[in-house]
């Protein structure tokens, strides 16, 4: 029996080439896109899931309440917090601190920049990062390091690493460490990333005041006792906060901080390990929006739905030609279930072919997909039993929907009417129209979202930030050089070079450079009896001049003055201080003696446009161990200037890598997440439109075939070709118009919600939707016109003869 079905299905594929092609191509493309998007979503959802007892692992963060009911969460904790939590909170089993950055590491003649993380020894017993060879307890000694396999392979060129001495540059000095062991490489789905692990003791050694509670810079992780809950821990930690932050809490209460529900103004909270990847506060790894993987799945779902709708519509359309067969089979004794099974098996064959083709296609496209969206996937994910079951169940569901539903509908027809050829698909053309509307709702939705996304991205990229992005090169200082000396020699070598206009430096980058790091530094202190909170940067001479910051009053840091303990502030800071003329005023925090304000600059966006501009203080540190050098060059020959600076830098720092980049590239890099989102939505929109149009095309073929006689009669009665094209197109364009009306408010709502993430955003214009709607109408019209024009130009005698 089944063989008989297969035979029919196979012969049908051969006979109905347009439909087979539309169905198989549509399904293949849809499955392939869904597979790739699904892989991406799976990757995001399985982040950090390889640790044992992961439900007991948390990152902690401090929530600081502000006046007016807002709060400021921060995952930067003080050094002594970890041991105190271990001792004073019964719910805590283990604690580990985690900090670090890319440092220069050397072995013999080899030198490379590796991600070095300083952690407590408990880190390895809390998390699943196995030590493969050597001493498991290496982190108990401050002079030992653990290398990942890949780092060891690169640094030691395949040689034995254990017991060898490597030099790591810390605080501008090379420090020797013994390699204690080799660790497995960190999986791609880990928020924690490191190539070298060493003891947190090294951080403590470098600090002037290791017991200070005001230096808050360290991520802190806890493992709870077996039966303890996160709530219990948060409750126990209240006593700790009150005990160690007595002064700060009373200052906050004085400044009018609104307490939270529990009556606290400064409290500890937890982020479950699984949420770290989705949490903005965590700052371990780069957080993504929780909505993002869902969006991938929604896109996948929409694309597959559109292909499935094609399938359903075409099957129903074809029921005209298949109806005779169905009626006959019923008369010969087929049960309805058997007929449904037969049609389902046809859908199954088409979908199976599509699935196999899409797997092949996905395999071929994966490298491109990875490159486009900055992923590192392999099809190995497909070996996971859960993924396989997922794919199979979705596949069966789609075949059931696409093949089963039309079969169920057709098999319910009255046999006699079918056999008499009286079949009228009045009801199903309502169904068909609804489905076409759904397809175009998706298409219009995606087009409008694409337009708004693109406008916002353009806006982010082109909005003046208040500093010169186009002519300034940012150069991360790396490798084994003394940063202050390097800056000095760079200045002297570039002095008088016609390409170079000014040189300055800072401890923090603007935008996101090629080294990929971003940093925040906030300081709070009291000024004239009220609390002040500000972002802080340490900078070198000519900072305002190099970046073209506009001075509102006062002056830049220039070598002409004998400056010590001086700062430049921005307008927001001046406003916060409440000073009309802040020049000459003194500020005092930990610094002794107090610093003096010498200049005020116009506000500029030193952070991404997601955030509003914060109060900012830039302090001149003449012998600064700078992290980033800024060089303003002539606008005429930008690549040439870059080449000159690269050459000079290589002379000063022969073992370092040159990672200079223009600031406008850096700011673009900050919106990587948005670009990726836009990329995915645009690709999905294109796919959705193509698949919808393929379906529309095939439906047009069917409808015109059914109206052949009508068209012939109309032509004989004197209808022009144009009027016939209109006659056919209008029916379809009405559907598209309905889709536009439904999709527009949804698109407006979605994009408006998304724009709320930005402090600086565009206003959605009405013409955006008019444009998207018109695009959909035009695309639909062209798709149909291929068929309608052919029908209109056909000789009417021919179409009437066939009746």
């Amino acid at each position, binding site marked *: 029996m089944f063989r*008989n079905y297969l*035979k029919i299905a196979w012969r049908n594929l051969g006979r109905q080439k347009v439909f087979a092609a539309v169905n198989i191509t549509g399904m293949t493309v849809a499955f392939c896109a869904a597979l790739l998007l699904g892989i991406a979503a799976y990757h995001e959802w399985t982040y950090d899931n390889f640790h044992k007892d992961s439900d007991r692992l948390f990152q902690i963060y401090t929530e600081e309440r502000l006046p007016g009911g807002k709060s400021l969460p921060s995952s930067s904790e003080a050094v002594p917090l970890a041991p105190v939590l271990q001792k004073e909170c019964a719910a805590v089993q283990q604690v580990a601190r985690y900090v670090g950055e890319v440092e220069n590491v050397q072995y013999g003649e080899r030198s490379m920049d590796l991600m070095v993380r300083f952690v407590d020894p408990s880190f390895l017993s809390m998390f699943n990062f196995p030590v493969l060879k050597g001493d498991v307890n290496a982190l108990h000694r401050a002079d030992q390091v653990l290398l990942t396999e890949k780092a060891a392979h690169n640094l030691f060129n395949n040689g034995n690493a254990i017991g060898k001495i490597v030099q790591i540059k810390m605080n501008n000095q090379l420090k020797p460490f013994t390699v204690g062991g080799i660790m497995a490489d960190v999986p791609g789905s880990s928020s924690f990333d490191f190539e070298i692990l060493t003891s947190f003791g090294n951080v403590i050694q470098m600090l002037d005041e290791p017991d200070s509670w005001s230096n808050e810079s360290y991520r802190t992780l806890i493992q709870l006792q077996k039966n303890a809950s996160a709530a219990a821990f948060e409750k126990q930690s209240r006593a700790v906060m009150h005990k160690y932050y007595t002064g700060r809490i009373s200052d906050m209460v004085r400044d009018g901080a609104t307490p939270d529900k529990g009556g606290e103004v400064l409290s500890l909270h937890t982020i479950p390990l699984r949420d770290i990847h989705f949490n903005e506060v965590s700052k371990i790894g780069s957080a993504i929006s929780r909505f993002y993987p869902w969006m991938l799945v929604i896109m996948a779902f929409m694309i597959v739905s559109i292909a499935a709708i094609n399938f359903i519509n075409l099957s129903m359309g074809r029921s005209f030609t298949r109806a*005779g*067969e169905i009626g006959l089979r019923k008369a*010969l*004794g087929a*049960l309805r279930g058997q007929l449904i099974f037969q049609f389902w098996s046809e859908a199954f064959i088409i979908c199976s072919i599509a699935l196999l083709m899409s797997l092949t296609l996905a395999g071929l496209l994966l490298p491109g997909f990875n490159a486009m969206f900055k992923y590192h996937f392999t099809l190995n994910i497909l070996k996971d039993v859960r993924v396989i079951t997922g794919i199979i169940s979705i596949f069966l569901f789609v075949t059931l929907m696409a093949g089963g539903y039309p079969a169920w509908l057709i098999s319910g027809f009255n046999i*006699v009417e079918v*056999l008499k050829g009286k079949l009228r698909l009045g009801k199903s053309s309502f169904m068909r129209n609804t489905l076409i509307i759904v397809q175009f709702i998706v298409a219009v939705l995606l087009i409008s979202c694409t337009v708004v996304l693109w406008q916002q991205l353009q806006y982010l990229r082109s909005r003046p930030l208040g500093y010169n992005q186009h002519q300034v090169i940012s150069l991360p200082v790396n490798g084994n050089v003394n940063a202050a000396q390097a800056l000095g020699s760079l200045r002297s070598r570039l002095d008088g070079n016609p390409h170079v206009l000014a040189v300055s430096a800072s401890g923090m980058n603007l935008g996101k450079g090629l080294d990929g790091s971003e940093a925040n530094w906030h300081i709070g202190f009291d000024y004239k009896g009220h609390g002040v909170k500000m972002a802080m940067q340490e900078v070198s001479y000519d900072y305002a001049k190099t970046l073209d910051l506009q001075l509102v009053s006062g002056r830049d840091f220039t070598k002409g003055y004998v400056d010590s303990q001086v700062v430049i502030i921005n307008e927001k800071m001046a406003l916060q201080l409440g000073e009309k003329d802040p020049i000459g005023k003194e500020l005092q925090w930990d610094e002794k003696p107090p610093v003096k304000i010498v200049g005020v600059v116009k506000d500029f966006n030193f952070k991404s446009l997601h955030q509003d501009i914060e109060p900012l203080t830039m302090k001149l540190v003449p012998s600064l161990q700078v992290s980033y050098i800024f060089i303003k060059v002539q606008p005429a020959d930008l690549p040439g200037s870059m080449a000159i600076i690269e050459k000079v830098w290589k002379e000063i720092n022969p073992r370092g890598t040159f990672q200079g980049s223009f600031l406008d590239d850096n700011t673009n890099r900050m919106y990587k997440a948005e670009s990726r989102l836009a990329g995915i939505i645009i690709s999905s929109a294109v796919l959705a439109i193509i698949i919808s149009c393929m379906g529309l095309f095939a439906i047009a073929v069917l409808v015109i075939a059914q109206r052949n006689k009508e068209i012939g009669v109309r032509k004989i009665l004197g209808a022009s070709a144009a009027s016939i094209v209109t006659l056919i197109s209008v029916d379809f364009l009405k559907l598209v118009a309905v889709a536009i009306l439904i999709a527009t408010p949804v698109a407006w709502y979605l994009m408006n919600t998304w724009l709320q993430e930005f402090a600086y955003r565009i206003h959605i214009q009405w013409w955006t939707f008019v444009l998207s709607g018109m695009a959909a109408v035009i695309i639909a019209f062209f798709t149909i016109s291929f068929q309608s024009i052919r029908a209109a130009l056909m000789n009417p005698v021919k179409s009437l003869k066939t009746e």
Partner: protein
Amino acid sequence: MIQLKHISKHYPVGFGKNEILKDIDLTIFEGEFVSIMGPSGSGKSTLLHVLGLLEEPSQGEYLFEGESVFRMNEKKRTQLHRGTIGFVFQAYHLIDELTVYENIETPLLYKNMPSAERKSRVADVLDRFNIVAKKDLFPSQLSGGQQQLVGIARAIVAEPRVILADEPTGNLHSDQAKEIMELFKHLNEKDKITIIQVTHSELNATYGHRIIQIRDGKIA
């Protein structure tokens, strides 16, 4: 064998109704060869559809071997279609995607007959109708008469006890028609199959034992 009691059939048209069959009483005995005749629109095809369980009457009772068919469930009725009733249509209604052999085989597939028995039955029928050479052709490759031959072969392969034929020769020229009618006669006499045919042709009607005239939905 078949008993119709007070069978009526009407369709709603606007506010009124269009009566196709009016109070039909009819008894057909096992082994009969009955021809139903009447002008176009008289309701003869509808009567045949009611007899074949393809359409339900609006009123009345239908006993098949003493059992009321309207009280049967879908499954039981399908059993009748599979084993007891064979259909022959004016438009042949062969499945275009299947070969002659496969078309004949289809009813047996729905009966879940084992493969070996199926093959021998189909081979028998092919042989009997002299169409062995055509078994791998598709319907579109056959002439009208040959297609109807295949249609009849398909109708009898499951060894039904009744064949319902709706103008079986309507699309054929007279030589072919004669051949088909001879075949029906043969099936009726040798195989004892009850045959009910709808026809326009006086000549074809004479092959049967009894002629039922229908006019305006009533037996005349």
